[in-house]
């Protein structure tokens, strides 16, 4: 099976981004119908679509590198049917929450980091990746505007400020951990696919958080996280995502 093939360094590098986008989009789908107001239901369904779309494009790049034609079937094989140890997602996007404050703070943190990550590949020597980055960056500016437009008033009100800062305490360590360089990154940098390491994004992230949340934060001295290891929330999440597929693996849905 193509999806089970041992990935090369470059593929690992792309899968780390693709898996993050996939699971972030997936997490957004959980808020449809239960957000604080209708406009937020709309925003999360739209942003969720964008993130899944980015994942789709990145998975397609991995398949092309493998010489596999990207079809709905081959993309889904890669997106849904690797063993847990083959996923490269960060804990930030695996984390399950039913708290809107955490969901909103994660949305802002993830999109802030995502934008910086796209910048690292915007001038990629791998032209299809640069094209995906250009498209994604246009959408991402709306995502960040959306998160900002909610966070600003919620941080200004005494009713909500503490909830948002409490959520930040929970989410920020995961956000920094997501900056641990994925396998294949050094190869990607050496080949000009990426212009720098995600590790270098810790400084910009710290600055952005300090400014947005008006609170002192410091990046951890060392960022150690292994994207080959899954968090406790991954298995239930994946089982939910595969539930219909699991009814009959020979079926086309």
């Amino acid at each position, binding site marked *: 099976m193509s999806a089970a093939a041992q990935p090369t360094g470059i593929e690992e590098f792309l899968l780390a981004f693709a898996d993050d986008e996939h699971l972030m989009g997936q997490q957004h789908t959980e808020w*449809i119908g239960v957000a604080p107001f209708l406009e937020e239901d709309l925003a999360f369904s739209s942003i969720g679509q964008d993130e*899944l*779309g980015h994942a789709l494009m990145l998975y397609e790049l991995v398949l092309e590198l493998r010489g596999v034609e990207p079809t709905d079937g081959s993309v889904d094989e890669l997106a849904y049917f690797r063993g847990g140890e083959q996923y490269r997602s960060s804990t930030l996007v695996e984390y399950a929450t039913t708290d*809107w404050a955490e969901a909103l703070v994660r949305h802002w943190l993830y999109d802030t980091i995502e934008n910086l990550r796209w910048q690292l590949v915007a001038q990629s020597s791998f032209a299809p990746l640069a094209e995906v980055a250009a498209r994604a960056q246009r959408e991402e500016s709306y995502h960040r505007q959306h998160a900002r437009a909610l966070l600003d008033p919620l941080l200004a009100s005494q009713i909500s400020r503490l909830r948002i800062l409490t959520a930040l305490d929970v989410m920020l360590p995961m956000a920094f951990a997501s900056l641990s360089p994925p396998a294949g990154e050094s190869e990607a940098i050496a080949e000009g696919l990426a212009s720098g390491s995600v590790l270098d994004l810790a400084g910009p992230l710290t600055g952005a958080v300090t400014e947005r949340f008006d609170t002192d934060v410091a990046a951890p001295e060392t960022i150690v996280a292994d994207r080959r290891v899954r968090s406790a929330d991954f298995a239930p999440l994946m089982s939910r995502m595969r539930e219909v597929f699991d009814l009959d693996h020979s079926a086309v849905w």
Partner: protein
Amino acid sequence: MDAFETFLDGGGIVEADDDMPDDYRRAVFAFIEMHANSELMGGLTERDWIPKTPGLRHKMSVLAKTQDEIGHGHLLYMVAAAMGVKTRPQMLEDLFAGKSRFHNVFHYQAVTWGDQVAIAFLVDAAALASQQAVFKNCSYGPYRRILKRIISEEGFHMRLGEDRMMRIAEGTDVQRQLFQDSIDRWFWPALQLFGPDSKPDDKLLRWHIKSERNEVLRDRWVQKFVPMLHSYGFTIPADDLFYDEATNQWDVGPIDWEPLKKTLAQGGPDSARRITEASNNWNRTAWVREALEQASATVPA
């Protein structure tokens, strides 16, 4: 009222700021409020399955559809609120308190993925047929304009629903059994969505909100879906179903309206859970709305 009805009979269109009889205002408002509530509760029925949609591209289409549906609810609540009977928050509070109505079909739970597809196929078609009939001759201008957009988007949803249904119908035994079970659960609720035969003095017909009688729309749906489901080899859960050779029409036999009546009194199979969950979700995020209200109040004009 006579002069107003003459105006409506002559094709007159009522706008939000126009004078209108109070009975007309209340009846049209109640109709639009129920439509808005149904879009919202329909989204909640589907949300149980959206995260489980099999496939990345498939999930993106389902999200796009959901985004449309919630968008319809959003527009409908605006149109309803502009009638000055209730504000949007009042409508939502009433909905979550179990005090207002939404379509019978959303008092049932989607228990399998097959149900999700059956809703997109059978229920959406029934809802679309009703909306088209309202759009055709609707005397309330703001509603008519919104319906135009809703109907054009619902047309895309129908094709998505048909496409998904066909993949299942032409699929494996597991898929076909799953969908047969869903037809067994959803055929009657979808048919009952049209309601019992219209009364001779139905005000919504007289005031040009509805343009066709319930039984006419219901029968048209039966004539389309019974042969279509048969053609894919599915059975219809109607013991008295027969084909009348004389009229070339399908007849589903007597219709039991008790299940519909129960849903109107919030006593459907899933009404209590549905309303309680919606209400709990609403309350759980009350702090967001309160904080935003406070923030907007402190922003200098």
